[in-house]
Each structure stands twice: as C-alpha cells, then as structure tokens.
C-alpha cells in the first residue's frame, strides 16, 4: 500500500493529499466519522433553533396581545371624549417600544382616528393585532372604535443569528474534538501496533533479524500481533532449520569440493611423483605404444640403450630405430658382430614378451630385460642392472654348492659313523655268539655272554637313535609288500627268545586262527615294533611270562586277498608294571618311567616313541594298560589288506599230509601248552596237553596212542631228556617220535651233542616258529612232502655248511680277498676270487655262480656298475644272487643298493652270521629255480 502510494505520488498534487488521506486508516476513519458528526450536529442545532424560534414567536404574540389589550383600554376614554390629541399622545407612547412598528386607532366606522408608524407595516408584518375598543355604557359595552398594532420580527431574527453563531462555534469545537480523539485513539490502538508490525516486517524484508512485536493489548490487534509473533517464531524456527540444512549442505558441498580438490592435488602429486620416480629409478624404464613407438623413457634407459643419459630420445621414435642407434653406440657387445641380426633378435623378444632375459652390456655388466604388455597393447620395458645381483647370486651359488657338499659330507659322515659303530658291534655280537658255541668254562661263558648283552644294548641304542632321527625327520617310509604274518611275528619273537631264556621267562606267541596268513605291509618295521615291545616286556619282567597274542578285530572277516583286515597285537607281561601317573610319559622322547628305571634297566627311552610312531605310520593305534606289580599289556592295532602268500600252497599240502595227527604236548608252562595246542588244532591236528611229565608218562604207558610227542626240555622234577629216556625205556619200540623244545640255543656245543645223542626227531628253540615246527612235524611224519626245508638263522649257518653253492668274491683289495676267502672256506665254500668289476663280469659269463659277493668301492668299475653289467649280460633266470659288500653305509643305504640291482647288502668287516644268511638266501633262490625246472621236467 505504502509503496503503491509512493509510486503514485508525483503528478496531481491536490489529489495526493486526498489520496493519502483516504489511503490511511485515519483518513478512512475520519471520512466515515466527520459527516456523521456534522449531520448529527446540524440535526441537533436545527431542532434547538426550531424550538427557540417557536418559543420566541410565542413570546412576541403574547406581548402583542398584552399590548393591544392595555392600549385599547387606555384609548377608550380619549376616544369617547373624542380627544384626538390625547389619542395621539397615547399612541406616541406606544411607539416608544422598539418592537412596535406601527399603531393606529380606528372609529366605529373604521375611519382612522390616529395612526403612527409605517402605514404598510400592517400588511408586511405577521405580528398584527386588532382589538375592539369598548366603552362601558352601564348595561352594555358599546364598541366605539378599533385599535390596531403591528410588531416587528427584527428582534427574532437577531436572536436567531446569535444562536446560529453559537451553534457553529460549538459544532466546530465538537468536530475538532472528534477528529483529535479519533486520531489519538487510532494511533494508540491501531497505528502503533501496525507501525510496529510494519517495522518488524520491514526488518524481515530488509533481511535483518526478526524482532518480536511487543504489543499485548489483548484486543483483536493484540491477538493479531500475538499470531504474527507466533508465525514469525515459526518462521524463525523454520528458517533456522532451513539454514541448518543449508549450512549442512553447504558444508558438504565444501567438503566435497575440498575432497575433489584434494584428490586432484593428490593425483597431481602422484603424477609428479610417478614422473620423478620413473626418472629416478635405477632401472631403465620405457613405455612403447601399441605400434612400438616410444612414449616415455627415463634417463637410465637412455643411458643403457645409448650409453649416454643426455642423449635425446624423441617421443614417437620406433623401437627398431632405437635398437639400430643402440647397435651403433656399441653398448651391447653382442651387437658388434652382426648388428642387423641382433636388432631382429631384440625385436622378436620385444614383440613376444615372455620371461625376463639377460643381456650383456659392455664392461662386463649384465642387464635383465623384462617386457610386459600393458592393457592398451603397448609394451613396458624395464632394464635392470643385475651385475651386482649376478655377482652375489654366483657367490651364493658357490656358497650353496659348498654348503651342500659340506652337508653331504656331514650326512655321509653320520651314516658312516653310525655304520662304523654298528659294524664292529655286529662283529662283537657275532663273535661272542660264536665264542659261546665253543668249548668254554663257566667264567669264559659268562664273559662272552656279558659281551653279547652289552653290545646288543649298544646296538639297540644306536639303531634307536638312527630310527628316531629318521622318524623325526619324517624320512621314514614304509614298504608295502605282501608279508607272511606268521613268519614276521615269529621272527620277532625268536630274536627276543634268547633274552627271555636267559632270564628264565617263558616267552609265548599265539596267533589266532582268524588272523590272515599274509598282509600288505612293512615286515621289517612290524618286526621292529614287536621286538621293541617284546624286548621291553622281557626287560621289565623278572619272573613269569611274556605272551604275544595276535588276533583279528573282525572275526567274520574273510581271509581272501584284497579284503581289509584289522589285527590287534597284544604283548602282556608279568613284570613290574607302570604306575598310573607315569603312563603318559611312556611314549615321550627320552623319557622312561623314572630315573631309577633308567639306571636299573638302561635304554634310551626311544624304543616306545619309535614304536608308537611306527604304529601310527601304519595306521594303527597303540595302548597300554598296566598294574603295578602285576604286569603291563601293550596292545596296538594294525589295519591292512589281506595278501596272498606265495608258498601258501605247499604249506597247505604239508598240512594236509599231517592232518589228524595225535600230538601229546608235555610242557609245565600252561601258556605255552595252550598256545601249542591251539596252533596244532588250527592245523587240524589232535593235540593233548599235559603239564606234568610223570602224568604224561603214565598216559603213554597206559596205552594212549600218540603219533608224536612234543616235549619241553626244562621242566621241574623231570627234564626233557629224562622224560624221553623214561618213555623209551617203558615203551621200547612203540615209543612215538619226539620233538624237543628248549630255550637253549642248539649252537651250544655240549647241549647240542647231548641232543644229538638223544636222537630226537627234531630239536627246536622256544618259541618255535610255525614253519619250523610244521617242518619238523612233516619231516617226521610225512617225509615225502618235504620240499624246501627251513630253519632258524642259527640253523641256516649250520645247514649251508658243506654246501655246493658256487661263490664269487669280488674285491680289489688283496687282504679283503684273503679274509673273505678264509671266512668262506671256513663256512665250507670254495670261492672264486677276482679283483675287479671287469673280471667279475667275465667270471659270471664263464661260470654259473649262485652268489656274487661284490665290493662296491673299486677303482675303474664300481660294484654297482659291475652288477648292472652282469644283469645285462645274463638271462634273468640265470643271474646269481648278488650281495653288496661295503664299509660305507647305514641301513638306509641298503635300499639304495637294492634299487641299483643288488639283491642284498653286507657291511664290512663281514659279519659271519649276516654272510650266512645271505648264503642261505642264495641257496633258496637256487632251490626255487631248480624246483621250477623240476616241475617243468615233470
């Protein structure tokens, strides 16, 4: 409104005031108010005037009537007396009244008697009176004339004018009061708050902070102001919120902007750094585009390629051109001869990036170049100076070779050492064993036995340590070959048997009939496990027995090859037992049950650790149960695949031949008796056990028929010899054949002689191997079924004596030749001796040898080569059994030799027993071949 008014201001100045007036609330209010005040004033004063005039006129009429009455009375006498002069005087007196305009007196005939004043007054004035002049004639009034008076209204008009003036003054005052009051009220009630509102709005409009309008009148305006304030407050709040949002938005925008700026700066910096980095790296760096044109190359690259970092390389230069320039500078020695060829070679390597390649630079410096394809199809070439690296690597290589050589030497030393310790030990054991077989007095026997025991212990310890280190190094690999379970188990038992016999402990082995005959596995290691456990049991048992039981965990499992079997081996002793709290230490390295045990029983404490590892390697699990003072039972499981045993058929045939044989078992040891009987039953024989020799004698004498008697040597009251003599004495010719069991080695001279004198069908060492026992039975009861006799190792040594095996000894050393020859001759052989590999080959061509004892370390041709040549020369069926002879190996090398084509391995100095075993093996090989030939002949 204001603005509009202001805008319209200018032309039409008179209009402006009115306009402003009507455009303001005050003006509008006055425009409504003033006419009302004016009209009401006019009405009020009009009514008042009308009323005042009427009363003034009424007063004038009253005065006229009074005057006429009075004067008519006054004139009556004068007229009656016709005194005209008097009348005139009276009239003149009347005329002094200023209101009287004219006065006249008429006679009865209306003739003018006297007249004063203006003649026309009677016609003009409305205030006229006519009064009859009556004369009192006694009885009646006689009308004698008429009096006329005319009064003036001038005084009336004068009064009216005065009143009008007054009214006008009053009206003016009233108007002024009304206007003033209106203005004041307006400004107080409306104008002020409005202007405050206006000011507040103007502040808001001019973007100043809003101000609350302080107007608390309580009326409509007050409420408007309150509402306005409220609205303003809301707007403030809203604006604050909006501002906050805006601020937030702005802040975010700023942040984002800052970030972008930062990122840009970082990118810029990174670009700068990258450029610097490329420039400063010690490697030569160049980037080529997909057309092999240079994009960028650092100083180092220029240095390498052109021999000078200052040379300019134009961006866009083709790689080929660059190579030609390089070739010209002579930086690359290889480019000097045929630059074009060199360039082409480099190009092909560059275009087909593969593994980094090495280039020679002038000055005996070396460069490694690696080319990589970029995503855009370009090529990045990185040229590294590897002169130093190459030098270090060469040095390292030399150092590594030296270290490896040293390590090999160390390993070889260790191997040799262990072997060197074992060899003399074996010698000691072998010789002492042999010594024990000779004629000795008690002291000498005691000494020799002590030597065997001590050496044996030492050997075990050394083997343990070697095995342990192998196991620990994870280097132990198990063989997987069909093994004869019975043979393996019994071999282990047999080895421990002598120790058990020495301590006078019964050692028994029981293989349940449900155990398969063969299984895939490592017989050497299984034997080791069993030996460890058995040795342990014997070691910790003072009296009683040690029993090995083998059974199948799956009784229903078929024994057909290929099926899975799960065996459980159990070694039970009646020894000292192990306290509950010490059990957990059993399988730990270098730990025995306690220190006193170590002192008393010796040993490294490694045996059980190795055993446990071996069992676990075989997929089994080992457990121990023990009761202090009662004994200990170790048991382990062995899963495996049932395997066919080659000579099973002949065994079946032998078993068939002795089926149903009645056997009397005479042994005071119950366990042994039961085991033997069980074994016999499994073979479909009819055994009867008897614990007392006298009772057995009774049985035989009373007529019980037995095909054969098995008797133990060592029994209380009556020993085996006595029993045999008694039986023979009583039964004479009907005495059944007898087999003697003893714990004493048949090698022991005097005993052997005694046994020979007793003329037993067979004399076996306890516990007897199944094969051995079966063999003895078959030989006694069905000699026709005998094919290949077997015996214990000690028996082997005996049985190969005086044999007709053809032996070739190959050794370059004269003394070794002589020693070997003497040993072999002592064993009953006439060896052929040659001094070199070539001679050995020739000898084998010329003569069919059964066994070749081959020295490995020989000049010109070593034993391994000679062996290979012999095998190449001879047909497979005619090759001899070739045994390596060496002073240089530990057990593990045995496998190496076996892989190289040798059949067996003997360490030097030659151990007589081991040699005998090899000779026996050769003999078996020959027999097998002969058997095969015979079968073919039939």
């Amino acid at each position: 409104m204001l603005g509009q008014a202001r805008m319209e201001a200018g032309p039409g100045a008179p209009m402006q005031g009115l306009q402003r007036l009507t455009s303001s609330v005050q003006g509008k209010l006055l425009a409504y108010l003033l006419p009302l005040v004016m009209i009401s004033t006019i009405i009020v004063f009009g009514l008042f005037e009308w009323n005042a005039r009427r009363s003034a006129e009424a007063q004038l009429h009253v005065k006229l009537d009074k005057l006429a009455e009075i004067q008519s009375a006054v004139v009556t006498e004068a007229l009656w007396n016709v005194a005209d002069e008097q009348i005139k005087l009276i009239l003149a007196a009347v005329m002094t009244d200023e209101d009287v305009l004219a006065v006249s007196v008429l006679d009865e005939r209306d003739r003018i008697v006297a007249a004063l004043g203006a003649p026309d007054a009677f016609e003009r004035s409305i205030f006229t009176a006519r009064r009859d002049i009556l004369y009192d004639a006694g009885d009646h009034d006689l009308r004698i004339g008429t009096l006329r008076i005319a009064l003036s209204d001038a005084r009336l008009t004068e009064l009216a004018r005065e009143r009008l003036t007054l009214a006008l003054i009053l009206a003016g005052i009233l108007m002024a009061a009304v206007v003033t009051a209106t203005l004041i009220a307006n400004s107080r009630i409306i104008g002020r708050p409005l202007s405050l509102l206006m000011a507040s709005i103007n502040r808001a409009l001019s973007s100043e902070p809003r101000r609350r309008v302080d107007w608390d009148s309580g009326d409509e305006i007050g409420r408007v102001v309150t509402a306005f304030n409220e609205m303003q407050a809301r707007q403030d709040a809203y604006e604050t919120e909006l501002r906050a949002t805006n601020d937030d938005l702005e802040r975010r925008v700023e942040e984002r902007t800052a970030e972008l700026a930062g990122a840009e700066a970082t990118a810029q910096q990174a670009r700068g750094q990258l450029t610097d980095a490329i420039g400063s790296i010690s490697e030569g760096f160049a980037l080529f585009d997909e057309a092999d044109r240079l994009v960028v190359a650092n100083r180092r690259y220029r240095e390498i390629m052109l021999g000078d970092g200052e040379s300019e390389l134009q961006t866009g230069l083709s790689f080929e051109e660059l190579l030609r320039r390089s070739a010209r500078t002579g930086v690359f020695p290889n480019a000097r001869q045929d630059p074009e060829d060199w360039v082409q070679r480099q190009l092909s390597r560059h275009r087909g990036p593969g593994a980094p390649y090495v280039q020679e630079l002038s000055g005996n410096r070396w460069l490694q170049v690696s080319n990589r394809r970029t995503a855009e199809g370009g090529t990045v070439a990185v040229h590294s100076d590897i002169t130093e690296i190459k030098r270090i690597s060469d040095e390292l290589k030399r150092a590594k070779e030296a270290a490896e050589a040293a390590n090999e030497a160390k390993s070889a030393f260790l191997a040799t050492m262990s072997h060197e310790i074992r060899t003399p030990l074996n010698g000691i054991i072998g010789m002492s064993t042999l010594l024990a077989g000779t004629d000795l007095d008690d002291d000498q026997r005691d000494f020799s036995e002590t030597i065997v025991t001590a050496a044996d212990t030492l050997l075990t310890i050394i083997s343990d340590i070697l095995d342990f280190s192998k196991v620990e190094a994870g280097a132990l690999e198990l063989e997987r070959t069909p093994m004869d379970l019975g043979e393996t188990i019994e071999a282990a038992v047999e080895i421990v048997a002598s120790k058990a016999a020495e301590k006078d402990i019964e050692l028994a082995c029981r293989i349940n009939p449900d155990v398969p005959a063969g299984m895939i596995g490592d017989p050497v290691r299984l034997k080791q496990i069993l030996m460890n456990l058995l040795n342990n049991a014997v070691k910790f048992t003072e009296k009683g027995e040690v029993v090995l039981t083998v059974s199948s965990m799956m009784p229903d499992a078929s024994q057909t090859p290929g099926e899975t079997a799960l065996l459980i081996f159990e070694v039970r002793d009646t020894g000292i037992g192990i306290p509950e709290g010490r059990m957990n230490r059993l399988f730990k390295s270098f730990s025995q049950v306690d220190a006193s045990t170590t002192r008393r029983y010796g040993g490294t404490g490694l045996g059980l650790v190795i055993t446990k590892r071996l069992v676990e390697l075989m997929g089994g699990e080992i457990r121990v149960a023990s009761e202090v003072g009662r004994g200990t039972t170790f048991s382990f499981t062995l899963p495996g695949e049932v395997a066919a045993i080659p000579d099973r058929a002949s065994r079946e045939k032998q078993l068939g031949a002795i089926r149903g044989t009645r056997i009397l078992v005479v042994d005071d040891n119950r366990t042994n008796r039961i085991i033997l009987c069980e074994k016999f039953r499994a073979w479909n024989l009819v055994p009867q056990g008897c614990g007392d020799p006298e009772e057995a004698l009774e049985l035989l004498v009373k007529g019980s028929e037995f095909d054969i008697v098995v008797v133990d040597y060592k029994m209380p009251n009556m020993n085996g010899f006595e029993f045999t003599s008694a039986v023979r004495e009583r039964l004479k010719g009907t005495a059944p054949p007898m087999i003697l069991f003893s714990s004493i080695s048949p090698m022991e001279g005097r005993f052997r002689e005694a046994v020979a004198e007793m003329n037993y069908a067979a004399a076996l060492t306890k516990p007897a191997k199944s094969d051995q026992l079966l063999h003895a039975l078959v030989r006694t009861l069905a000699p026709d079924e005998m094919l290949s006799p077997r015996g214990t190792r000690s028996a082997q040594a005996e049985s190969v004596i005086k044999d007709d095996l053809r032996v070739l000894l190959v050794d370059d050393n004269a003394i070794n030749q002589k020693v070997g020859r003497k040993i072999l001759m002592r064993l009953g052989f006439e060896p052929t001796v040659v001094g070199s590999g070539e001679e050995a080959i020739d000898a084998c061509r010329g003569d069919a040898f059964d066994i070749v004892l081959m020295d490995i370390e020989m000049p010109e041709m070593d034993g391994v080569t000679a062996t290979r040549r012999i095998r190449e020369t001879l047909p497979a069926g005619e090759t001899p059994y070739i045994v390596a002879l060496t002073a240089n190996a530990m057990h593990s090398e045995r496998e190496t030799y076996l892989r190289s084509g040798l059949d067996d391995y003997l360490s030097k100095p030659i151990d007589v027993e081991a040699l005998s075993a090899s000779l026996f093996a050769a003999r078996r090989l020959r027999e097998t071949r002969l058997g095969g030939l015979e079968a073919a002949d039939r």
Partner: protein
Amino acid sequence: MRDDVIDPSALERLLAAIGGDPEDLEELLGDFQHEGPRTLSQMQSAARAGDRDALRISAHSLKSNARDFGAVALATACEGTEHAAITDELEALRMRVHLIATELDRACGALAKLAQRDG
C-alpha cells in the same frame, strides 16, 4: 686293555671269522705289512697327481684293511681322507696322506709286535 693303535677285539673277531687258525691270521698280518705300504704309495701318488677319485678309493681300501686288523686310528684317518678326497684342497689332502703314513707306520709296528707275542 686296549691301546690306541690296535683294537685287539677286531683281531680276535677276524681270527674267529677266518676259522680260528692263528697261522692264517699271521699270514694275513704279513700281507698287511706288505699291502698297507703299497696302498699308501698309491694314495701318495694319487695325492700328488691330484687324482681325487683314485685317492678316495685307495683310502677306502686301506680303511677297510685297517678295520679288519683293528687299526682304529689308521682307519679313522683313512676314512677322513676318503670323505675329504672330493671336496678338500689338495694341500690339505696331502697333509692327510702324510698323517695316514704315520698311522700306518704305528699300526704296522703294533701289529708286528702282537704277532711276535702271539707267536
């Protein structure tokens, strides 16, 4: 019971192995008195010629004999040379051969003494 030069148990063992006839042993000992120095001279010429393989084999050979007769120190010296033959400096090897010569001398002396005593 056992001196540094000869381990008598080895001799006993050897005696047992060859059948227990002392004459056989004496014969072997005699051979050694003759063969030992011969092998040594092979070693010496191999060491001079720098023929490492020949040195190794002759050391091995002498080691084997030394063991047979219980010449422990000699066997050890030979074994060291056998292992070092491929890797060590020739000069060091020659020193080793020299050491072996000394040990062989001692061993031969000791064995001769033993043979006399037994005889």
